[in-house]
């Protein structure tokens, strides 16, 4: 809110926060996490899923908005075949030319999945069931769906619906909401 200065000098451009203490109080605790997943590398999908599940475990609401390639994670025919990126992934510590060889992604993915099982990390389909059962809302992005010519029937049963960006922002109304882009 803009106000004129009392002492005659202008405070143009200065924002005076009358409700700052109230806002600080509301922000004491995270109430809801809105997570936007735009990629479908296994590491990205797991990051989004673990964060959403972890939020619910803390009593925080969580919703995931799947957009662009992130839609693969909820696409019936694709969600079982997500891979770790072995090319363009500096953390793989293998030369790009090796990472690009046939079978490398599959091998890296297999190794990663073995390690994930050890820490009781479920595979993608089971993780989606867990998220749904935990009360995480799963939304598909309408624009990306149109772009890839996906229909709602192409997506897994766990999703709650197809939303526009505007609809998704409305889910973020209220205090203590945080938005995360992956």
């Amino acid at each position: 809110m803009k106000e004129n200065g009392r002492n005659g000098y202008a405070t143009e451009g200065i924002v005076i926060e009358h409700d700052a203490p109230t806002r600080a109080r509301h922000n004491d605790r995270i109430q809801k996490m809105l997570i936007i997943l735009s990629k479908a590398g296994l590491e990205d999908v797991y990051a989004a899923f673990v964060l959403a599940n972890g939020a619910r475990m803390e009593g925080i609401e969580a919703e995931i908005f799947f957009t662009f390639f992130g839609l693969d994670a909820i696409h019936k025919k694709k969600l079982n075949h997500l891979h770790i990126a072995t090319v363009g992934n500096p953390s793989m510590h293998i030369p790009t030319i090796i990472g690009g060889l046939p079978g490398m992604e599959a091998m890296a993915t297999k190794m990663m999945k073995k390690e994930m099982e050890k820490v009781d990390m479920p595979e993608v389909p089971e993780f989606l069931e867990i998220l749904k059962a935990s009360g995480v809302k799963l939304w598909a992005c309408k624009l990306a769906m149109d772009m890839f010519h996906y229909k709602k029937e192409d997506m897994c049963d766990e999703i709650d619906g197809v939303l526009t960006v505007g609809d998704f922002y409305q889910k973020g109304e209220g205090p203590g909401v945080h938005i995360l882009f992956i």
Partner: protein
Amino acid sequence: MDKIIAGKTIAVNEEGYLIDFSQWDESVGEELADEQNIELSSAHWNLLHYIQDEYKKEVPLTIRKIGKSGVVDIKGFYQLFPTAPLKTASKIAGIPKPAGCI
């Protein structure tokens, strides 16, 4: 620090988790549940006894494991303990705060 729970002096940490499980009994569980506004039903007790058994066996708890326990499914678990189920149930059961992320 010490806290009086159900008329007994019980050692708890700063988050309210019991430090010594041997100090827990069902009346302590009842009062801890009451603090969380939870009225314990037989379904609650089944779950509490299950996680206590797992704790005694030193098995780390995860939401996934609860879902596969046969005691309750994940949806039901969230219905029994709507806010932070694993933490809340652990607190009421007198076992340490779960350390996992999933």
